[in-house]
């Protein structure tokens, strides 16, 4: 290869191929069928939940918010119907995230990218934006024609474009609008928003979410799934040979011929594939790929190509599901003349289900047995112990009392140990001299300085265990924690 190289060749883009590619605009065609109906249903459900959930009311009694789902940031509380969580209980969210992640794994091992195809907000909103686009500008061919003759900006075309973007922006604005309702009392905030009295931060968040929805669902679309989202990569590592994915059954489809030729060949008794190369699966694909090339990173497995192909197969009188949820094992089995087998229950789906059940069970258990009175104790570190003038020994603790109930409590604090210990709370009125009583207002915490004293003649060891009891005087509810009492 003693080719002389000229300088042009070195700088040319053709040298090693192009460095970047323009986004190929996708024009998905409208389609009807089973999976399209499922997708419409799920879209209506997901958007319905998202937009209307903040308006659902839940009676928690006087003084507590009456919104069923509310993230109350200023007071650091999270409300979900009958559940109220404090910042200390953030581990419930950890559990929720574990369940969510494993649920994704389970979906993946059962039916591929169910999340991507049907439930992901990116898919749902993009689908909605495509519906708007189709409604305003027409179906695939019409949109392609209008874009190709893009120079012809007639009044009708301009108004079409303006209408499309207005509807998009309106949907996007509502997306952001619904978001902020989760952080404040929804009816009040709607009133404030309409009269421009809402806090600035609400408008800022609505603006941010309007922008992201408009850009991601209107323009970025499949680029988000292909280039931005990590899940396609992760799912490639999670899938196994039994997972059902949207698959072109090439055992049935190949070799592709025209309808006419196929009929002729079949009459001669030759093997002919069912695929008639109509490209309907490509035309309806929201990511613009050809499913017949096999599993691809870009494929979100929305199932629309199944509907497209089923419609064609029905028309040409061939069996449905040339494209369907299947795997390579069954393709091979059919090629060998064996019946396909489906294995939903297998080690990994059982394991994923078990993890979900275990984590969910633990969460439910802790939620059901959640105490409404709690105490945390922190021993003073400097000094750990103080000798008093009569020789007795005193330790100081920072005590945090949590009253998670909807009523004020009066509690007493006692300390038990191997030696006789007396307690005193700084600033608290003692009803009985050695038993401090403290009022903790409803739904709040109190931080106190607790002094525990051992008498001079008790000679406590270097360190003895102490058990702190916080007793609700009215209800008898007790919260307990342990720490140490240290001698100097």
């Amino acid at each position, binding site marked *: 290869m003693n080719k002389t*190289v000229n300088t042009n060749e070195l700088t040319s883009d053709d040298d*090693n191929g192009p460095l*970047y*590619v323009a986004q190929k605009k996708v024009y998905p065609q409208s389609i009807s069928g089973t999976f399209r109906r499922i997708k419409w249903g799920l879209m209506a459900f997901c958007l319905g939940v998202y937009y209307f959930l903040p308006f659902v009311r839940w009676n928690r009694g006087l003084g507590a918010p009456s919104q069923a789902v509310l993230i109350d940031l200023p007071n650091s509380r999270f409300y979900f119907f009958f559940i109220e969580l404090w910042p200390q209980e953030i581990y419930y969210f950890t559990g929720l995230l574990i369940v969510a992640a494993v649920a994704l794994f389970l979906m993946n091992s059962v039916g591929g990218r169910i999340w991507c195809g049907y439930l992901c907000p990116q898919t749902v909103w993009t689908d909605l934006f495509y519906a708007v686009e189709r409604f305003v500008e027409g179906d695939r061919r019409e949109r392609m024609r209008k874009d190709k003759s893009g120079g012809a900006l007639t009044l009708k075309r301009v108004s079409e474009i303006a209408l499309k973007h207005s509807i998009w922006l309106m949907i996007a604005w509502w997306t952001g609008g619904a978001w902020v309702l989760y952080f404040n009392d929804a009816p009040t905030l709607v009133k404030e928003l309409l009269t421009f009295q809402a806090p600035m931060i609400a408008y800022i968040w609505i603006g941010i979410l309007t922008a992201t929805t408009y850009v991601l669902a209107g323009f970025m679309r499949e680029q988000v799934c292909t280039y931005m989202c990590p899940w396609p990569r992760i799912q490639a590592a999670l899938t196994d040979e039994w997972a059902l994915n949207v698959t072109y059954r090439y055992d049935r489809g190949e070799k592709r011929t025209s309808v006419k030729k196929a009929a002729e060949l079949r009459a001669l008794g030759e093997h002919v594939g069912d695929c008639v190369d109509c490209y309907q699966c490509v035309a309806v694909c929201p990511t613009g790929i050809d499913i017949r090339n096999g599993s691809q990173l870009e494929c979100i497995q929305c199932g629309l190509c199944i509907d497209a192909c089923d419609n064609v197969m029905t028309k040409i009188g061939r069996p449905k599901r040339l494209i369907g949820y299947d795997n390579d094992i069954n393709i091979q089995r059919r090629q060998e003349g064996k019946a396909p087998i489906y294995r939903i229950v297998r080690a990994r789906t059982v394991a994923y289900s078990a993890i979900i059940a275990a984590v969910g069970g633990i969460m439910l258990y802790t939620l059901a047995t959640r105490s409404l009175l709690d105490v945390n104790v922190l021993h003073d570190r400097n000094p750990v112990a*103080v000798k*008093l*003038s009569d020789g007795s020994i*005193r330790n100081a603790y920072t005590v945090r009392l949590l009253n998670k109930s909807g009523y004020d409590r009066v509690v007493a604090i006692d300390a038990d140990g191997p030696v006789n210990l007396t307690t005193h709370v*700084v600033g608290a009125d003692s009803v009985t001299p050695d038993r401090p009583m403290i009022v903790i207002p409803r739904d709040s915490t109190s931080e106190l300085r607790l002094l525990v004293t051992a008498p001079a003649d008790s000679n406590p060891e270097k360190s003895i265990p102490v058990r702190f009891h916080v007793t609700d005087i009215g209800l008898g509810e007790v919260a307990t924690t342990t720490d140490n009492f240290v001698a100097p």
Partner: protein
Amino acid sequence: MTDHSEIDSVTGRATTGHEWDGIKELNTPLPRWWVICFYLTIVWAIGYWIVYPAWPLISSNTTGLFGYSSRADVALELANLDKIRGDKMAALGAASLADIEKDPALLALARAKGKTVFGDNCAPCHGSGAAGAKGFPNLNDDDWLWGGTLDQILQTIQFGARSGHAKTHEGQMLAFGKDGVLKGDEIVTVANYVRSLSGLSTRKGYDAAKGEKIFADNCAACHADGGKGNQELGAANLTDKIWLYGSDEATLIETISQGRAGVMPAWEGRLDPSTIKAMAVYVHSLGGGK
């Protein structure tokens, strides 16, 4: 350089022309919007240099068109903080010391404020936890040279002890040995007598009656009969278990011979009145307050 790129037969896509041990890399070009975003970040960075402080010069730096400085930002935030806290600190200044301790909100504020100010101003001598050291009282215990009520603590913080302030606590432990008031054996005897006051062991053959007499003649004027001490004069209670300098015989002999006069500075004028109040409540709440 030769172009090795070719069309891959399996995928139908171009390769980059790179080859490692027979493995060829497909060319996967970046999406154009990604490249545009990348260039936009560069443009953004240049804009950032222009409007914000960015480039170091020899003795300063470029200040930027916005005139932003993080120092001014901090000053502004601190001023805002003072404004926010203004009402609460005013409430603290208006309330009496006893009322502050009874109001949980004011107590929490005073303790938080007091702890911070204590760490900045008092910790060098008294220690960060106010546990004290030799010559510097432990403020957690219940033994007080100048009194342990809220008002007495406040007074001590305001005016100090032997601080030179007009209203400061005066009175000191005299140097009985150095000044020739007591002789060596008398000092040893009275030191042992002082130890006996709080039940500590005494030297073999020490004359208790003589010790008592020396004490009555020389020490009781300040330390009171029986060594109970006198908070008016800052004279320590010699009958309890707490010793500022130490209770062993050698230390006591040193104390009696050389005298003691520790200094606590006056904080009035250096800290504002409500801050001093907060500190008094904080010290009182450590546990030893009367």
